[in-house]
């Protein structure tokens, strides 16, 4: 395996709430090699967005390490952090609320360039803005429009252009296509994959849509209640899902074909509360294979095949 560009070790984030500690991210270890895409899937509230933000240090972790090119970014001071932001960027889910409504397209795309000081002359910056707009497929006539004048797909292209403005190596994509219609979603996914090929970008791709994550990712991490329960190469995960939750998740997706018009298998219950979770496996209350030990012993990620890690007592 190539040396990882991004790595986390025992990364934790607990939020204090009135009712106790909310375990948003609990001991997650992942590695992303340069030029690859790691997909993070899970249901709402499983901590996938928090995890993405921790990687960029947009929120401070409670514990653990985030290594970027082998350096622990949690030890960087403000100045070092600002330099680092040129290399790591984020694309947000909602292209309606992540763009400042009072800034024009060119101001939005130019802002990271100005903040990081990569370019200083006005015409240089404007040239770069036009270049970026060309890269993401935005016509030049939109340069002075405001976000509200554009549709969702074009707005998401602005978000992508803004992330690319400082030539980053690593981009956290937090549900970048969830708010878009399918035909527009496909255009944006194609664009992101082309950009990765052209610029050698590394992505952390957060989504709840398994068909999207299968399409774009090299590796996939499945999260449940703040923990990574299964990590494997994309094909391996879809062909041999091991964790009962992964299996349930795959079974629950409606497939757009009549051949598989199957009796959808259903897991019972709902995600339990992440506040002060009980010891043992967090999926146990919904699991079809629950054993006596599951509510006592906390499973950890174990390698069951090359590069295939599962956190379940069935496999230990």
């Amino acid at each position: 395996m190539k040396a990882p560009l991004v790595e986390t070790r025992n990364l934790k984030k607990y939020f204090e709430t009135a009712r106790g500690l909310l375990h948003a991210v609990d001991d997650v270890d992942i590695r992303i090699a340069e030029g690859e895409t790691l997909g993070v899937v899970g249901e709402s509230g499983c901590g996938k967005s928090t995890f993405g933000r921790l990687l960029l240090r947009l929120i401070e972790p409670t514990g653990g390490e985030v290594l970027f090119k082998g350096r622990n970014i949690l030890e960087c001071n403000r100045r070092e952090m600002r330099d680092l932001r040129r290399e790591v960027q984020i694309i947000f889910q909602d292209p309606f609320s992540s763009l400042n409504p009072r800034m024009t397209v060119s101001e939005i795309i130019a802002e990271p360039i100005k903040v990081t000081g990569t370019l200083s002359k006005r015409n240089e910056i404007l040239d770069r803005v036009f270049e970026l707009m060309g890269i993401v497929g935005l016509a030049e006539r939109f340069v002075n429009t405001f976000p509200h004048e554009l549709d969702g797909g074009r707005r998401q292209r602005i978000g992508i252009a803004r992330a690319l403005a400082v030539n980053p190596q690593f981009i956290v994509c937090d549900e970048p296509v969830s708010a878009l219609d399918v035909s527009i979603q496909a255009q944006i996914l194609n664009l992101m994959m082309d950009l990765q090929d052209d610029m050698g970008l590394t992505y952390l791709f957060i989504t709840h849509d398994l068909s999207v994550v299968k399409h774009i990712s090299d590796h996939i991490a499945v999260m449940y209640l703040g923990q990574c329960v299964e990590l494997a190469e994309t094909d391996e995960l879809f062909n041999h899902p091991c964790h009962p939750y992964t299996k349930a998740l795959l079974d629950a997706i409606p497939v757009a074909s009549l051949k598989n018009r199957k009796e959808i298998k259903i897991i019972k219950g709902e995600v339990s509360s992440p506040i002060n979770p009980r010891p043992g496996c967090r999926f146990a209350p919904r699991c079809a294979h629950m054993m006596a030990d599951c509510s006592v012993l906390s499973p950890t990620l174990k390698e069951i095949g090359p590069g295939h890690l599962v956190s379940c007592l069935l496999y230990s």
Partner: protein
Amino acid sequence: MAEKLLEIRDLHVTYRTDDDVIYALNGVNLSVEAGKTIGLVGETGAGKTTTALSILRLLPDRVGFVRQGEIVLEGQNLLDLAEADMRMIRGNDVSMIFQDPMTSLNPIHTVGDQIGEVIKLHNPDFRESEIDARVDEMMEMVGIPAERKVEYPHQFSGGMKQRIVIAIALACSPKLLLADEPTTALDVTIQAQVLRMMGELKEKFNTAMILITHDLGVVAQICDWVAIMYAGEVIEIGTVEDIFEGDRHHPYTVGLFGSIPDMTKKTKRLNPIEGLMPDPTALPRGCRFMERCPHKMQRCVEIVPEISEKGTHQIKCHLFSPLWGESTPSARIWETGGKRR
């Protein structure tokens, strides 16, 4: 063919704003058989929700207008009814599940009261105890213990709230249920639970359903019929077999299927439809899909395509009018040199 429960004929709806007139529906034809589910598929702005709101006559007051057409429920044109009669139909014969369960429940009434309200309204001679019993029955039916009926919406999770909304919609055993993206706001494991429950209840009450969605996966799993909408028109309609397994499709349908990543095989690139939906205030003269269509021809620019029919399958596209044998009106126009009627 089974009896038609609902028939929509040539429905035109516009929204009037200060600056523009928005042409939301432009001649929608649709029919629903008793007990069957039809999926209404399309992207944002295709007119799916407008169609549902028109059936219930819930278009926004003084903004949305039905310009033309008929909506016939069991032989009765809903558009001719007085408001008081319409009120007796809503929730009783036809009811609706809205997209967002978080905002469609009243936060200051208990869920039991909200289910009871619709029962009381449509069965004025019911005694308190009868209503109570029916509420309990509905709660159990959607899988929530009846003792939770005294709780408020905020005490339930998203999936549970959607179950309550479904209980309200089904409380009077309607003949037709309009479900506007009922599972879009839910996670996939919860979506699977809700879809299965809706399927079971539909069977039990023999309710027909119009399921509005943009998820072709959901359609393939639970619908009997599918209508694909684009820019305020039904551009293709047929049984699920016609749509998912037939070999002739409207170019837009082809594009829609090309846009979803296929779970069964590995594709390097998706094949999306280029471009965007046309501006609903200034629709093109001929085919509405023309500007994004890879098979655009001269007549697409000038002539609105007619519906070509083969068995249960209908497609509104010039590509098919001559190919499907019958001399359709549009084919005749083409032969006589593209003159408009």
